[in-house]
């Protein structure tokens, strides 16, 4: 099928009245979630997974995807007006966005964030559309050794990108893999680590776990240290106030282009996603600028680049999931959960077996981006008011959603206890500097990693050479190995250099 036929098929799915409504519900909810500090897109998607049971699979995916990219749009509003990032991917927008707002250019900052997000989101989707089909075809040749190498590389990347401590991230990845082994052995169906608890026979369910880690833990953060969101910048009034002037457009346009490209490339990497891409895009823009001293003092490029990057990364984050069946980040892990709830395994065969779903989902994102632009520009004043919702109301809403969501998975109260346990764990893990992303990704990838490792070893009759004699797995494992070894070598070299300097200065 050619590109145009594929697009036509996709739009015939995404433009049905029902799917348009689901798309709108997703992007609206995503924007609200992005605006509200304390409730992230991962938690919201986790909360809504049980609700999607009875929905048609494509509609469910369209709505859940809408929540994700919608939250990226919404996150910029609080960053610019309150200097409180609604999403971690909007942290960099706080710096120059808030400075612009303080100088009376809140409208231009919000406007360029919305336009930049729209342009980057659309460019990212074009990239996704062009890259996904050939990659899916290439992945058809993957066997167990390639899948093992791919999961190993994914976990290594997750542990090294976006975390301050590699040992802590790797420990969390190991814990995630271990939690993934609870329940029946995927090959022999023997019970492992169930300790006689019947509810653990089928393993720990992803939904209560993620609700606890991302939803209930936020409740604990809110009650332990109440979040006081104070409006410090005036929201712009009227549509015209959102339009950047000619000079601002001239400054922002190249930053949008570069941010889109950087976001797209970084977004494909497992674990990187919107947050890292916005950091990288901001750093690149500052380095390339003729006036780097303007950054931090209200440079519009400092808003355009990270906002474009995080939206472009949202689109490219779908590539590993749709083509290889591997989630690149926590939200994609939840999307994988959504696919599986409906009995669909995303991966290389998805495009051939369910082209309507594949292209329907992709084209819905084009539609959703247009909706977001139309929604965000006139309603920014309303969203700015939502940011002032006090924690006293927010906490019961999140708790109720977590309870219903966790219970609704299996109608089992045990899942509520699992959710509470993971909530407490997530709260303390974050307070002590442990990142939760490696844990969740490892938990999701664990069964695939174990099965492919055991199958590979059976195929090779116990020889580990199967992983290095096959070119794709050899390259993937070499990259993972380099990622693991490089920081150690660097640290040793730094220590040696410090040792050489110390005696000289001492004498």
């Amino acid at each position: 099928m050619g590109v145009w036929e594929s697009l036509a098929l996709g739009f015939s799915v995404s433009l049905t009245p029902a799917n348009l409504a689901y798309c709108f519900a997703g992007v609206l909810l995503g924007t609200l979630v992005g605006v509200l500090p304390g409730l992230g897109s991962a938690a919201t998607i986790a909360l809504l997974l049980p609700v999607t049971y009875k929905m048609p699979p494509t509609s469910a995916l369209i709505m859940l995807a809408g929540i994700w990219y919608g939250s990226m749009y919404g996150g910029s509003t609080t960053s610019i007006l309150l200097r409180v990032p609604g999403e971690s991917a909007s942290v960099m927008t706080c710096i120059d966005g808030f400075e612009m707002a303080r100088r009376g250019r809140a409208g231009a900052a919000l406007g360029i964030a919305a336009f930049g997000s729209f342009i980057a989101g659309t460019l990212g989707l074009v990239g996704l559309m062009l890259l996904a089909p050939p990659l899916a075809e290439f992945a058809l040749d993957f066997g167990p050794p390639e899948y093992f190498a791919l999961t190993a590389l994914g976990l290594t990347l997750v542990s090294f990108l976006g975390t301050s401590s590699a040992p802590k991230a790797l420990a969390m990845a190991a814990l995630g893999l271990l939690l993934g082994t609870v329940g029946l052995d995927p090959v022999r169906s023997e019970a492992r680590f169930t300790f006689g608890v019947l509810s653990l026979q089928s393993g720990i369910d992803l939904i209560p776990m993620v609700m606890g880690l991302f939803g209930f833990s936020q409740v604990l953060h809110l009650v332990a240290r109440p979040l006081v969101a104070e409006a410090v910048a005036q929201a712009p009034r009227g549509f015209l106030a959102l339009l950047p002037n000619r000079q601002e457009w001239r400054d922002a346009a190249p930053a949008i282009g570069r941010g889109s490209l950087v976001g797209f490339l970084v977004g494909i990497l497992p674990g990187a996603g919107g947050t890292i891409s916005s950091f990288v895009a901001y750093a690149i823009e500052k380095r390339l600028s003729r006036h780097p001293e303007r950054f931090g003092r209200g440079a519009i490029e400092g808003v355009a680049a990270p906002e474009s990057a995080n939206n472009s990364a949202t689109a490219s984050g779908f590539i590993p999931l749709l083509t290889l069946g591997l989630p690149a980040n926590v939200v994609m892990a939840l999307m994988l959960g959504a696919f599986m709830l409906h009995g669909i395994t995303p991966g290389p065969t998805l495009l051939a077996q369910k082209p309507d779903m594949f292209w329907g989902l992709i084209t819905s994102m084009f539609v959703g981006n247009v909706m977001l632009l139309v929604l965000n520009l006139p309603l920014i004043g309303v969203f700015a008011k939502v940011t002032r919702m006090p924690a006293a109301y927010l906490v019961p809403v999140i708790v109720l959603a977590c309870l219903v969501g966790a219970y609704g998975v299996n109608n089992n109260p045990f899942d509520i206890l699992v959710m509470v346990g993971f909530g407490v764990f997530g709260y303390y893990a974050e307070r002590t500097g442990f990142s939760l992303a490696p844990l969740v990704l490892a938990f999701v990838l664990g069964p695939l990693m174990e099965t492919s490792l055991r199958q590979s070893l059976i195929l090779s009759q116990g020889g580990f050479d199967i992983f290095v004699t096959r070119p794709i797995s050899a390259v993937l494992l070499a990259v993972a190995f380099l990622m693991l070894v490089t920081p150690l070598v660097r640290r040793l070299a730094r220590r040696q250099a410090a040792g050489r300097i110390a005696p000289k200065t001492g004498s």
Partner: protein
Amino acid sequence: MTRAACALLVLLGVAAVYAASRLAFGSARAPETGFFPTLIALALVLFSGLALAERPENPAPLERGGGGRLWVVTGATAAYGVLIQPAGFLICTAALLLLLLRGIGRLPWTASVVAALGASIATYGLFTRLGMPLPAGVLPI
């Protein structure tokens, strides 16, 4: 606090190695049920040990009374999990929401009671209509 968390993970890893050692390990030629968990548990011990050796970051101090509120919410939500089946969704949810709105959020009594009851009944009605069987418990509904 960070050191304690790392030490706890090391202990968890050691316990997992022990628990995994009771499963059949097999061999590289024919890996059994305990093969993967043993390797992973050993990795957990190794990486959390390395994290323990790092210089710890001190977490920001909690607001006065924050720790108490945290455990009240945790305990109440866990109790909800235990009581939802025998007492029913409506009673448990209304009680928990009342605690959160009045006890934690310090909203006025009337507003808290109305919001807790209203949200519980609305949620029950919505989700049972969507086909999710929520326990009725002691109430004849």
